[in-house]
């Protein structure tokens, strides 16, 4: 068994950059979570990263995420003690100790949540998640694709409130019950999702996504430092594809059913001059059309980045005039299976398109 690897403060910074790119437009900015990690590391915390293959089959792993309305998260700021309490209370409920903690989604701020809990609970973070990116809905995970059990769930707020969803009839019911509790405590809560065994993580998790996010961040930082093109560096390092380069010409957004939906139009520049790219999003970027023809679609990762800095641009911060590059990164293979596509393919987002990967 390989020893646990300590994660440096610099790697946490890289993780935040990489996670924001893997957020594919959603997942929420990791900024506040990063501020918390800086403070914890200044106080001497060092979190270790665990190779998922080092988990024993019967080890228990906590899957954590922050849940709620982004607007509320800007006033009631994420706190490591809250996410740690969700994990501790779940241990009390189960009467068992977690061997390690992992992220629900590696895209956006939730990539950093397990590190916040791990720093306080002195547990390692598993180098894995169950989305490999960010998705808007609870059933869009590799665990759901594998039909693993979705309960129990522990939800806590900053006061002494804690709610357990002991059982749920389906993923939809789990979403409905936990959402109701979340609204009652002020539309922001820390959650510890259904516990997973080491065997489940190894067989059904998306492995090594944490170190992938760190590496992605490092690639961007190194390119910026050397004044090289960060987009080209990402594409080379992650075997991605540059789909389009241009300027945002129009953005239309609407908030519906708790999601941020909308479309953005990009007019081509450079090699793409004269062409037009359109993006549709539901929290995250879902489908892209080149001159009217489908060019890229979920679950392939659709990343929109500032052409110069390589910084990821969220669906909330898209703005007319931004110079952007649209890059596709490969999706985790489990999401590309017929079962995976049922959960996260274009039809799951309401687009009647046959999935075709740009990497096929």
């Amino acid at each position, binding site marked *: 068994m390989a020893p646990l690897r300590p994660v440096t403060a610099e790697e946490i910074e890289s993780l935040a950059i990489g996670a924001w790119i893997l957020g594919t437009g959603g997942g929420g900015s990791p900024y506040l979570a990063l501020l*918390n990690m800086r*403070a914890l590391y200044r106080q001497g915390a060092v979190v270790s990263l665990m190779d998922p293959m080092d988990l024993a089959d019967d080890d228990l792993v906590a899957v954590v995420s922050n849940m709620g309305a982004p607007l509320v998260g*800007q*006033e009631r*700021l994420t706190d490591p003690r809250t996410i740690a309490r969700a994990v501790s209370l779940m241990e009390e409920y189960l009467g068992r100790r977690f061997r390690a903690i992992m992220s629900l989604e590696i895209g956006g701020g939730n990539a950093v949540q397990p590190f916040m809990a791990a720093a306080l609970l002195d547990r390692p973070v598993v180098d894995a998640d169950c989305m490999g990116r960010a998705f808007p809905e609870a059933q869009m995970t590799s665990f759901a694709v594998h039909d693993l059990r979705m309960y129990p769930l522990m939800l806590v707020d*900053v006061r002494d409130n804690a709610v357990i969803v002991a059982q749920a009839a389906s993923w939809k019911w789990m979403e409905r019950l936990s959402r109701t509790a979340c609204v009652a405590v*002020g539309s922001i809560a820390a959650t510890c999702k259904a516990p997973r065994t080491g065997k489940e993580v190894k067989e059904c998790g998306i492995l090594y996504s944490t170190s992938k996010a760190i590496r992605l961040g490092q690639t961007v930082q190194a390119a910026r430092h050397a004044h090289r093109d960060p987009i080209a560096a990402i594409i080379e390092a992650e075997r991605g594809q540059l789909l389009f380069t241009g300027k945002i010409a129009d953005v239309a957004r609407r908030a519906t059913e*708790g999601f941020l939906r909308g479309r953005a139009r990009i007019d081509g520049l450079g090699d793409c001059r004269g062409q037009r790219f359109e993006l549709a999003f539901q929290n995250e970027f879902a489908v892209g059309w080149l001159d009217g023809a489908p060019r890229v679609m979920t679950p392939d990762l659709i990343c929109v980045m500032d052409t110069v800095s390589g910084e990821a641009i969220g669906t909330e911060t898209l*703005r007319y005039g931004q110079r952007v590059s649209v890059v596709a990164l490969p999706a985790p293979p489990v999401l590309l299976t017929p079962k995976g596509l049922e959960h996260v393919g274009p039809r799951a987002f309401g687009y009647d398109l046959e999935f075709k990967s740009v990497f096929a």
Partner: protein
Amino acid sequence: MRRVGIDVGGTNTDAVLLDGSAIVHAVKTPTTPDVTRGITTALRELLAGVGPSGRIDAVMIGTTHFTNAVVQRRDLTRVAAVRIGLPASASLPPFVDWPEDLAALVRAEVVMLEGGHEYDGRPIVPLDEIGVRDAARRIRAAGITSVAIASVFSPLNAECETRASAILHEECPDASVTLSHELGRIGLLERENATLLNAALVGLARRTTRAFTEALRASGLTAPLYLTQNDGTVMLAATAQAFPVYSFASGPTNSMRGAAFLSGLSDAIVIDVGGTTTDIGSLRHGFPREANNVVEIGGVRTLFRMPDLLSLGLGGGSLVTGSPTASGDGLRVGPRSVGYRLVDESRVFGGVTLTATDVAVAAGLIDLGDRHRVADLPADLIKTALARIHATIEEGVDRMKTDARDEPLIAVGGGCFLVPERLPGVSEVVHVRHQAVANAVGAAIAQVSGEVDQIFQNLTRDAAIAEARRLAEQRAVSGGANAATLQVVEVEDLPLAYLPGNSLRVRVRVVGDIAEV
């Protein structure tokens, strides 16, 4: 109405006198370390130029003083930060994302107390009034004179902040108190940062306003004094001195408003080419379009309403280095610049440094200095350098355009000869008289505004907008507006679907002429 506009910049203090909409006279004088003397000099020269010709009705001053104080870390007051919201947000205390050097200068005390509200107006937990009183006594004992109070969700419900402020006034009547809900929007850290910056600047703002007032008196003026704000309007100095952060970006705003006035255009792109940098912004209905993202001031993240500006490292003093190559990347223009040393170092003025100005003279775009001194420049160098400059400007202008239709481009600033006469997406390039004092003109023409951005519950849409308008008008009048001239310039309402009780976020902005006194 006869108005004086003054722009106190880092290098020059400019002043103009406007009679109605006619520019009577304009002067440019050097800024002095004690701002007062520079203003007195500018006023003396301005008034001497027009002779004893009747009264002045208002004086408007725009200054970069407060931004510079933050950027240069000087003249700042130490601040006690009071955060109300525990148990929420506990791990990220006030000053958490400030640059350490600035925090060390400003942070006198940090107090975190229970209280604050939920998104729907329910209290998180009741306000810890005893804690506020204890903190107030400690603040007084420590001799701290400025306090910043920020409560969770105060833009929705300001009760905790106003109650804490009342307790502070009882315990330390001499301290000045800045409340976050008067300054900012949703986003606790950014709003609190603005509040802390404001609290750190109130001392300087009071001293500066007093100095401005004295300069006016010394010049024999009795007209009321106004300070210009980020949004291109003014506030009576007596009100404005409590909110120095509102004047952070007034320089570029005044420049754009001045450009609008001088050109007679209200919708256009404005390009201000200086010695070292070029600022590009977009005018909508005579006001700069505002940025809708995080703005950093001296390294501190805030959500100020600032003009959306694109700054390029290109100006009249930009260095031209390297030589043209086939690939086209051998020659560079900027971002380094000789800056104010242009008149000593550039070739046409007898120096040895090749600048963008030298290239422009060699190309015959402008006649400055001695053009024989650049007669030896190779034609392909001139052509390549100009192409580089024009491409940079074209790209910047294109980036700031908000719609695909052609728009006019107003060129101002000392380096505006670098702007090409034709650009894609631009209907015409407009040059104006008095472009060198556009800032002071922008200050002189400013009106008074009032704004409300608030969430209303359990009101019909019409009633909520009417109430927001009433509050905005109240604010405008207290800022010095003539109530009879107030006009609504912006109304925006956004139903908040995920909040209960018919919540509607309404933003109303009204603008009016200054009231004659």
